[in-house]
């Protein structure tokens, strides 16, 4: 009987096993898999932004903050007293924050120290807790702020790289199966976060950027300027190595900053370059074979009469009989007006718009880049208005962004090969995969011979002309000063014409002149303490150029002890 019952029992179990394993096997297998794993949705951490050598410009880090659950607090006064002692705030202030809170949770303090966290946790007050949140951190505060932009409260990138690369830095949400044990513990180690990594590596060198910002801040304050910018770039690659602006802002506290400082003026505002444009006009004339550096011009009046207009030299000085290289050395307007005249308006405009592409954006990977269409110059070409071309020859009446003129000078310095695009991105990391930015193209804007002749003329400006304060013993430095009158429109005034007192003072140069490694533009807006850039932008250029020469350990062109005074070029 017992044996029979055991057989029966065994048969029952066997039948049940067959039912579970074979008949409904796939159903239970799926059911078990569903219980053993959970589908987890993970939002990727926003990609970090690094300088060229890996220093962090922007990063997303988890940060602790103190919050209270208002409904759980039994005695607000006692809680406020305990918290205020730890975080160093007034008891009344904390009390008002808690009692005036709307909603469930109220944040009391962010950026807690380790000691504060430990002290708060040891309180063990119901309703008081340490929570963690992802926070965008800009550890270098103001350094590179207009390059970075910032992340707003909604997690959207604003300005600079944060806006331009918002979607790729944000990344895509990922779904993954995570295993759980029978008690529901999640095996957290199973996620593969590396495959979600996003990030940007810049061409900007942190050390040079820091130095440029320091020189700029000191310069703006010393010369009483309203604002200023410095751009440094490699002419052979079109890579930006520094892009400084002052005033700047702290992206960590963007809510407390002036909104006008958020935009990157190197790409988001235009200016009239003034005399730093003269080398472009001279390059065009040299390239077209209309002049040589030794071509003579006559300035017997200190101005040129064009129709009903008199276009003057700076301070109306009369220079007499001079050679073309002196038109750069002493920044003589009449000389470059003659050069433009010899070239003709059609060819000049062709170089301006189609070769140097001053009406087109540089394509740099920063949000909000603009470009002037310079319609007045085009209109003047169509209607044969010579005076517009006379003033354009020395950089007045034409507008461009600082980065556009830096691109043009990259072309002048780089044997006539101008980068099609200026770039600030060395490489991108998307979904854990690296994408190297190596797609630069060049446009031959002037011949190599013209480039060499122009470099020599610009070295003469530094050795014997108004750029003498840019001189660095041992190195040939090419450069050109620029002091341009500011239009009333650029000063925010609703009238035509130019201010007689407000100026843009700038200096554009490259070094070593005959084998250039970098191009630098220094620009100051309306300096109050200097009349011309000779004593403002030029010494600033000198300081930054010397820093880069030392930092990159660029060997001197000649023994500095053998040439302590300026050298004769012509």
């Amino acid at each position, binding site marked *: 009987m*017992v*044996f029979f019952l*055991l057989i029966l029992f065994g048969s029952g179990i066997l039948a049940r096993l067959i039912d579970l394993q074979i008949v409904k096997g796939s159903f239970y297998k799926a059911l078990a898999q569903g219980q053993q794993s959970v589908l987890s949705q993970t939002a990727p951490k926003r990609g970090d932004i690094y300088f060229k050598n890996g*220093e*962090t410009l922007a*990063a997303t*880090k*988890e*940060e*602790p903050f103190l919050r209270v659950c208002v409904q759980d607090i039994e005695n607000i006064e006692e809680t406020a007293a305990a918290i205020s002692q730890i975080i160093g705030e007034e008891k009344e202030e904390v009390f008002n924050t808690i009692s005036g809170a709307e909603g469930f949770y109220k944040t009391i303090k962010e950026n807690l120290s*380790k000691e504060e966290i430990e002290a708060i946790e040891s309180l063990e007050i119901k309703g008081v807790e340490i929570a*963690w949140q992802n926070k965008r*951190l800009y*550890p*270098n*505060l103001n*350094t590179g702020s207009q390059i970075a932009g910032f992340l707003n409260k909604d997690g959207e990138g604003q300005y600079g790289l944060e806006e331009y690369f918002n979607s790729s830095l944000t990344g895509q949400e990922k779904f993954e199966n995570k295993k759980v*044990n*029978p*008690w529901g*513990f*999640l*095996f*957290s180690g199973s996620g593969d976060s590396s495959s979600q990594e996003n990030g940007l590596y810049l061409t900007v060198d*942190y*050390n040079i950027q*820091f130095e440029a910002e320091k020189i700029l801040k000191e310069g703006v304050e010393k010369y009483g300027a309203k604002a200023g910018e410095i751009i440094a770039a490699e002419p052979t690659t079109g890579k930006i190595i520094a892009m400084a602006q002052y005033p700047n802002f702290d992206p960590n506290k963007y809510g407390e900053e002036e909104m006008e400082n958020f935009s990157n003026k190197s790409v988001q505002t235009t200016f009239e370059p003034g005399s730093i444009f003269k080398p472009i006009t001279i390059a065009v004339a040299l390239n077209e074979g209309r002049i040589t550096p030794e071509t003579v011009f006559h300035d017997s009046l200190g101005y040129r009469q064009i129709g009903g207009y008199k276009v003057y030299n700076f301070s109306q000085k009369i220079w007499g009989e001079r050679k073309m290289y002196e038109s750069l050395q002493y920044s003589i307007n009449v000389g470059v007006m003659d050069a433009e005249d010899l070239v003709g308006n059609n060819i000049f405009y062709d170089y301006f718009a189609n070769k140097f592409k001053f009406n087109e954006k540089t394509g740099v990977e920063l949000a909000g880049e603009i470009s002037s269409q310079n319609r007045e110059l085009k209109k003047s070409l169509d209607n044969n208005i010579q005076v517009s071309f006379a003033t354009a020859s020395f950089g007045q009446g034409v507008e461009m962004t600082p980065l556009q003129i830096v691109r043009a000078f990259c072309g002048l310095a780089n044997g006539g090969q101008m980068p099609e695009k200026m770039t600030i991105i060395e490489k991108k990391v998307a979904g854990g995969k690296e994408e190297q930015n190596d797609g630069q193209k060049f446009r031959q804007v002037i011949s190599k011979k013209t480039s060499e002749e122009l470099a020599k003329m610009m070295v003469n400006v530094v050795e014997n002309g108004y750029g003498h304060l840019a001189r660095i013993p041992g190195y040939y430095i090419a450069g050109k000063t620029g002091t341009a009158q500011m239009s009333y429109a650029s000063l925010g005034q609703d009238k035509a014409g130019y201010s007689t007192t407000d100026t843009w003072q700038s200096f554009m140069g490259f070094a070593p002149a005959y084998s250039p490694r970098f191009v630098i533009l220094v620009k100051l807006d309306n300096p109050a303490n200097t009349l011309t850039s000779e004593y403002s932008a030029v010494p600033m250029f000198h300081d930054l150029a010397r820093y880069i020469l*030392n930092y990159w*350990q660029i*060997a*001197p062109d000649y*023994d500095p002890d053998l040439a302590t005074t300026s050298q004769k070029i012509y």
Partner: protein
Amino acid sequence: MAKRKKDNSKIFITLSFAVLGFLVFCYVFQVSQMAQASYEIGQKQTRLETSRKEVAGLEASLLQNNTLEKYEQKLNEMGYQKIDRIDYVVVSSAVVASRR
């Protein structure tokens, strides 16, 4: 004959219960081991999470302290001076080694 059959049944039943008991023991032991392992995993995950947060805090703090501005302040405090000029040794291209 009948007695022998009865003895066999007894042995069979005893063995069955013994096997059943052994299986129950194994099951309880396994469940106990799983509970212990799960508890340890939970503890370690909590520690891991705490450590991760501490590392995150330290990383943030490191980033904020690892800036040129801070280094410059420190160097100034320590009395370091900025160099003004670097002199390079000029080696004539024809010379491989020279006596000084």
